[in-house]
């Protein structure tokens, strides 16, 4: 177990290094010096080189690289050119809505998809099985930002049931908060739901073929008991893994989906920063989300190894 854990942790290090290096290079190979971006078009060469010196950008590249990595591990992602605050505090002030959308999407996906997957597996080959699989195919073919636009069109514009865009914090009431997030969460959750349905179905089918299920049936246990008491427990491990692994993807997905609905999360922060060419914010946010993505997957992976000894031995 210790060996497995050590191997997993060690294999993450080169990945983190590559990620750090790529993000660093993206900042520093950008055409035009940051000082010129901050000072605008009217700055003189002297002003630019002064600011470059203040920002430490005239030091050799390798020095900047190591200083920057040390900063990153201390949680210092630099300062925004335009917001007048550090990148870390900008991220913290925008993370709430993004996290909320990702979690709501996860809840929606799990509550819809797993029962449907179990149902489809228990009626394999019937019309309902084929239709559930067909809908899940459609769900996987529509990118979530497009689905979000279509949902906004139907429920916001045509039916007028929900606001098309905007956000209100949780402190203004749960329903107020919820109605701004629900369309984004459904849009984001449906692609995951489609994946979960398929995972649940095939995992259940796999277990239902096992000998012990035949024994349970032969004992005279009712079909419902076979499925929920005996099959589901053993089928749940791969389902849990896919659900766990989806967390990272959902946070990334939320970044794109929330911009459709003008929800002020990390995505909005990135989009606004692109328009302002506020590179530290873009790089810091991308780095933060990528690290979150890597660590969530690492945790899921380790948990999977704890739960299933076969993974450890591989």
């Amino acid at each position, binding site marked *: 177990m210790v060996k497995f854990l050590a191997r997993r942790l060690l294999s993450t290090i*080169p*990945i983190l*290094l*590559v990620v750090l290096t*790529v993000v660093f290079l*993206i*900042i520093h190979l950008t*055409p035009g010096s940051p000082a010129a971006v901050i000072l605008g078009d009217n700055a003189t060469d002297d002003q630019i080189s002064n600011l470059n010196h203040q920002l430490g950008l005239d030091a050799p590249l390798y020095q900047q690289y190591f200083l920057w990595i040390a900063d990153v591990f201390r949680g210092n992602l630099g300062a925004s050119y335009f917001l007048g605050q550090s990148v870390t505090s900008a991220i913290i002030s925008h993370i709430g809505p993004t996290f909320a959308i990702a979690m709501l999407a996860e809840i929606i996906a799990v509550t819809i998809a797993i029962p449907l997957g179990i149902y489809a597996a228990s009626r394999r*080959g019937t019309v309902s099985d084929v239709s559930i*699989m067909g809908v*899940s195919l459609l769900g*996987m*073919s*529509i990118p979530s*930002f*497009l689905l979000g*636009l*279509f949902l*906004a*069109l139907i429920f916001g*514009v*045509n039916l007028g049931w929900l606001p*098309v865009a905007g956000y209100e914090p949780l402190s203004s009431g749960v329903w107020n908060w919820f109605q701004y997030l629900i369309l984004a969460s459904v849009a984001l959750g449906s692609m995951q739901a489609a*994946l979960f349905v*398929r*995972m649940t*179905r*095939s*995992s259940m*089918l*796999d277990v239902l*073929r096992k000998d012990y299920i035949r024994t349970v049936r032969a004992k005279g246990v009712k079909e419902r008991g076979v499925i929920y008491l005996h099959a589901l427990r053993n089928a749940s491990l*791969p389902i849990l*893994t*896919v659900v766990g*692994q*989806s967390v*990272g*993807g959902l946070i*990334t997905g939320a*970044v*794109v989906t929330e911009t*459709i609905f003008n929800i002020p999360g990390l*995505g909005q922060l*990135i989009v606004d*920063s*692109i*328009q302002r*060419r506020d590179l530290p914010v*873009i790089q810091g946010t*991308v780095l933060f*989300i*990528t690290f979150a*993505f*890597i660590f969530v*997957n*690492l945790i899921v*992976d380790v948990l*999977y190894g704890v739960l299933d000894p076969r993974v450890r031995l*591989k």
Partner: protein
Amino acid sequence: MPNVSSTKVLTQRTLVAPSKRSMFVRKIMGSRFTVFGGSIVILLALLAIVGPLLTPYNPLELGPDALAGPSASHWMGTDEFGRDLATRILYGARTSLGIGASVALITAFFGATIGLLASYYRAADNILMRIMDGLMAFPSILLAISLMAALGPKTENVVLSLSVVFTPYIARVVRSAALSIKDELYIDAARVQGVSDLRIILKHVAPNILSPLVVQVTFIFADAIINEASLSFLGAGVPAPAPSWGSILLAGKSVIFESSWMVIFAGGIIILSVLGLNLLGDGLRDLLDPHVQNIRKKRKPFLIFRGLISSRRVPAAFADVEPLLEDQVDVDENPK
């Protein structure tokens, strides 16, 4: 004696073995989904090439009536500047499909090169594949966004960014395909005969990785279209006023109350092209992968769904878990 002659014709037909190529064409034609997906792709490509010649409008020329609904003169209505939407979607097809195709070709070339080198030289494997792993650890759209933010919004930069994002996916597929044949006896035989490394890679290894490469490239094509649309939609892709499907969506979003046509038509054509490419990719995978072919004979109904859970759709930060997941996904296709 008509019977005799027809027997003769029949015998001749059965005796002459069909060429490998015509067998393949026949196989493709026998797979409905491949034909369907392929037809969508060909139709869209034709529209992109020929379409702009057919329309009387200029995609950049402003018109008098903005946000008009579909009519006889404007089949899909007009956009917020009175430009003909159908014309912009046709020209947008050039941009969006052009970006998709360029990304597919560039990633195929670099991905195959990196994958082949990594499979053959251990040192290259350690360095190149670690870099590829690191690039794949980025959520793809985020890496594309930060590259675009650094490079600036330009169509060429979209191609460049998406190529950087997707090359690792090709490299990984090519590497594992190449590794599986590298230890075959005939490769050893070639080496013992003194054939150079380059020649072994190009003549003996490369032809064997073509099938997985083609399949993966088809999926990358679809992913590139989605990502181009997302980038342009976020304002980090093809700059205005050039028409691309993503930038039409972005414009459509801001006028969604006044005119929903822009979002519906641009979104519809993106879904159609992605669906077409995914079906084509699935179909090709079924035709080219002998393992899948055996399964295919046993069970048909859910064939269409399989390809949609390819390895790239499972979060891919940890490659080791993936084969296990794939097995599980395929379990119901392969009854014991």
